[in-house]
């Protein structure tokens, strides 16, 4: 084989083009932001977090585009165990060079990760964990609580129930950090409006049969049964409440936390008429529809709920802040990165314009939805009609009431 000039030129060009690929990360090693999506990939909260959250984070990275630094996304399964979750978080932060941890459903795991991230001065963008303690006594300069929280659910769904005449409550509560926080916040609301809590029962996470609890709730003669649980637990409770004729006897079921994926699992026949609160719904406006159309092909049939939208929106805002302050500095200090995020107004397709408060609470409107009847629904995932919008300033707990040490100082 003879080497003529042309082969040599094309060969060199090809080598340069190919060589460019492995070279780029090497050159940009100092300027790679690594995002770890830590959530439930295999259990009860998989559909409201899981692979869909990872896809939404990747969408945020793609939409952010290239601004002189690389972004890498990794994912981990905490199996709803706080020890597993904090171990993954430690390994990511200490060994694998992860800068930001995103999502983390299950309040028990979230509280553990919150501490780990703060110790190492990295960033924690919480979307799916609900406990309002993350912006209350447990608030951290390294954490932003993005999508929703127990206080906001209590105000929106709980408040609407009390207003409609439901002044005596009985709680069916998941027996861990999240359930306790949701029950506490809702009970405070009920009492503040001269309502009464007549009883509560606490069930283990991933319980299957709720008939016993429902019959106890019914015997209490409360007008409203508040469900302070989530995911499959909520689906099972609602299904069995209908079976035991609770709603037919005039008792109201307050599903304090329900995602659109839960409605899908229940089916409209069983879920119709329930009210729930989310801060994002795919069919809310043109921007939410645009986001959904963009991300939907990567979701394997799932639909983004507010938790997934929160992952997208939080990561997008973090990347904007990092670009604004310089990647090196954003990587060096999680506190400064979060401070920069708080200083910048937020804006994205999922939540529109918003802001982040000093205690780490992201502020945006919340929406009270009613689940449509099968006749009202025009197609797949057409599940909600909007009952009421709570403006951003009123949707979340007032800054002064949370007891966050960052605010006092």
């Amino acid at each position: 084989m003879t080497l003529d000039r042309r082969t040599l030129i094309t060969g060199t060009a090809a080598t340069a083009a190919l060589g460019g690929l492995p070279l780029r990360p090497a050159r940009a090693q100092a300027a790679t932001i690594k995002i770890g999506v830590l959530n439930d990939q295999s259990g009860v909260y998989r559909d409201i977090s899981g692979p869909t959250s990872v896809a939404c984070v990747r969408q945020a990275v793609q939409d952010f585009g290239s601004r002189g630094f690389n972004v890498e996304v990794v994912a981990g399964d905490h199996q709803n165990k706080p020890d597993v979750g904090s171990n993954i978080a430690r390994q990511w932060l200490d060994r694998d060079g992860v800068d930001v941890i995103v999502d983390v459903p299950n309040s028990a795991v979230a509280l553990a990760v919150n501490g780990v991230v703060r110790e190492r001065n990295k960033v924690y963008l919480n979307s799916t964990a609900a406990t309002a303690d993350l912006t209350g006594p447990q608030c951290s300069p390294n954490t932003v609580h993005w999508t929703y929280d127990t206080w906001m659910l209590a105000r929106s769904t709980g408040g609407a129930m009390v207003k409609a005449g439901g002044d005596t409550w009985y709680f069916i509560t998941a027996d861990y950090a999240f359930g306790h926080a949701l029950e506490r916040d809702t009970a405070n609301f009920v009492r503040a409006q001269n309502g009464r809590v007549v009883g509560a029962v606490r069930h283990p996470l991933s319980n299957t049969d709720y008939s016993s609890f429902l019959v106890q709730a019914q015997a209490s003669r409360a007008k409203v049964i508040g469900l302070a649980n989530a995911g499959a637990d909520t689906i099972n409770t609602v299904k069995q409440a209908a079976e035991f004729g609770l709603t037919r006897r005039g008792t109201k079921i307050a599903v304090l936390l329900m995602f659109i994926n839960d409605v899908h699992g229940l089916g409209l026949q069983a879920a119709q008429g329930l009210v729930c609160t989310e801060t994002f719904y795919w069919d809310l406006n043109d921007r939410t529809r645009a986001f959904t159309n963009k991300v939907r092909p990567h979701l394997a049939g799932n639909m983004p709920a507010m938790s997934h939208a929160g992952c997208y929106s939080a990561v997008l805002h973090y990347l904007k802040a990092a670009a604004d302050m310089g990647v090196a500095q954003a990587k060096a200090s999680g506190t400064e990165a979060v401070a920069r995020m708080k200083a910048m107004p937020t804006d994205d397709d999922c939540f529109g314009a918003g802001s982040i408060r000093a205690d780490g609470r992201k502020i945006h409107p919340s929406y009270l939805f009613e689940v449509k009847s099968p006749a009202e629904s025009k197609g797949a995932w057409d599940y909600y009609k909007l009952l009421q919008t709570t403006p951003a300033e009123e949707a979340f707990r007032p800054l002064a009431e949370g007891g966050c040490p960052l605010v006092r100082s």
Partner: protein
Amino acid sequence: MDEIFGIPAPLLFGQLLLGLINGAFYAMLSLGLAVIFGLLNIVNMAHGAQFMMGAFAAWMLLAWGGIGYWWALLLSPLIVGTIGVILEKLFISKLYKLDHLYGLLLTFGLALIIEGVFRNEFGSSGLPYRIPAELSGAWDFGFMFMPVYRGWVVVAALVLCLTTWLLIEKTRLGAYLRAATENAALVQAFGVNVPRMVTLTYGAGVALAAIGGVLAAPIYSVNPQMGSNLIIVVFAVVVIGGMGSILGSILTGFTLGIVEGLTKVFWPEASATVIFVIMAIVLLARPAGLFGRK
């Protein structure tokens, strides 16, 4: 109103009834496990996954084929049982000569794979399945509402348990099965095809789990982890009843359902652990279980 331990008596009876219904599920599932362990010496950790497959088969028949509940009650166990037969032929039959532990690990692995595949395909929030029209509605007892469907579950479970017990303890086929457990070579020498009988027994045990799944579909969330939530409790039931004892697992299933039901009234937080506390006590006092023969 009469009260027992500070709980109104009618409410307590209501709870006993509910406990009995849950016990029906425990009994049905532990029965299948007991049949498989008693006759095949395999600790079938895939039983929960097979229960789940039964429920999913019912959903698929309805959603994809328009086939309703009653046919599902017949077809779903056949389909899932056939899958069980294939699994037995391909994998489990290779392990009969080895220690129990190998069978346990193999079926546990199979369960993880099956659940993973379903989770990938259908997600974790579950699928809707309605109570059949004939069984919807409820009886109003005054002190509580008793859904017709729950009554049906208890009746179906009792019939199923009794039939299985009679089949194994009182018929010629059952006698062959029991004999094959004692001495397979001798039974084979009499011209009975023991390997085929064993395969079919496994299929039948799996079919029992699938029927449980179909019965559970209208009242529990049909999701990939529905079996794994239940199976650990069911294993405890089998251990308490005595590994492999058919009657033991039936009686223990119903009894523990009631015990759990009462715990839900007096100390709900402990309702997930009470069965394991009982298991520990039984193992200390009677290591072979309440109805164990050894």
